[in-house]
């Protein structure tokens, strides 16, 4: 290849590679940022978010009508056990892999009395006699999120009180 051709080819190869890296890497990078922001580097514990206001800048497009509790989880030391305390109105538990996929969601229609979930690594065998709902996470790290419908300051305060009974901890 003569002249400028080889340089143009190199530029195009680098451009395509950069494009692919950015597109595929964006969800993982943003999820890692969210993991840090929501948990401050701490894993396997619930963090109740303050009521969403103009000052809320942790996650884009937050809904001011919900009380959010987030648990960044890490399965590198084994399964993580999650317990969600029921709420008087809509609530849901959703799990997100480190590429942002919402791979599990359950709401109060399916679990009126709350739920206990054991989050395990992909392919891990569940313990014998386990009564919790078994969920296999596609990634070692991810985020568990509880949404409780609480559109007013009073309902938010009540939801915050209820959230103290939620559990997110290593199962060992």
């Amino acid at each position, binding site marked *: 290849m003569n002249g400028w051709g080889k340089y143009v080819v190199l530029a*195009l190869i*680098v451009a395509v590679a*950069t494009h692919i890296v950015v*597109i595929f890497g964006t969800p993982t990078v943003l999820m890692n940022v*969210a993991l840090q922001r929501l948990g401050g580097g701490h894993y396997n514990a619930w963090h109740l978010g303050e009521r969403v206001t103009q000052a809320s800048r942790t996650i884009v*497009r937050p809904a001011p009508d919900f009380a959010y509790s987030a648990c960044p989880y890490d399965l590198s030391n084994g399964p993580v056990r999650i317990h969600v305390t029921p709420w008087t109105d809509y609530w849901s538990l*959703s799990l997100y892999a480190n590429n942002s996929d*919402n791979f599990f969601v359950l709401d109060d229609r399916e679990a009126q009395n709350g739920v206990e979930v054991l989050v395990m690594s992909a392919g891990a065998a569940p313990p014998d006699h386990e009564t919790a709902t078994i969920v296999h996470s596609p990634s070692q790290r991810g985020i568990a999120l509880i949404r409780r419908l609480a559109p007013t300051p009073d309902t938010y305060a009540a939801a915050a009180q209820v959230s103290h009974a939620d559990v997110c901890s290593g199962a060992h």
Partner: protein
Amino acid sequence: MLRRVLAWIVAIVAGLVLGGASAWAALTLGVSSFSSHYGAWSLNRAAGSTAAGPYTRAIIARYGLLALSSREALYFNLDHDEHGQPLSESCIYDLTGNAIATRWWSVTLYANDSYLARNDDHAASVDATRINAGDDGIWRARISSVQGDSVNWLSSRNARRGFSLTLRVYNPQRDFAPSEDSLPKLATVSCASSS
């Protein structure tokens, strides 16, 4: 020799810039192309889905990280008026809707940085539990920088130009079928002359 090395470096830098710019363009300009449109509202059913492709996943991560999958909730966005103009703080709008066939819904106003507008009006959203509807079931929300005499109010104060609305539809009923007629309609009431 030095000239040749410089040429390789320039080629690599040009590739990085081109690749980065094309990815940015795909994530910014591609939002619309990955969505279904119902009148002025757009919906991306792939939000949160494990079946989402790499572009959809990247767009959702940028504009709606930690969104629920469509099995649980649907997210509709509206960012322009009936004339195709970006929504602006200097305008007054009416949002009118019927009962939505779902367990719960809300409409939230976001500034163009995708966060709540920087004001202390505590009027960033209206929702099914608080909206005041007429006897015919029709509700109307005023979108403006001051409340005036409106009962249902979404404050656009400090939202500037380019804000957007997100309609959340949680646990939609089986017969919920989004359409231009079933979703709330936005109408411009007036705009300040400077807009």
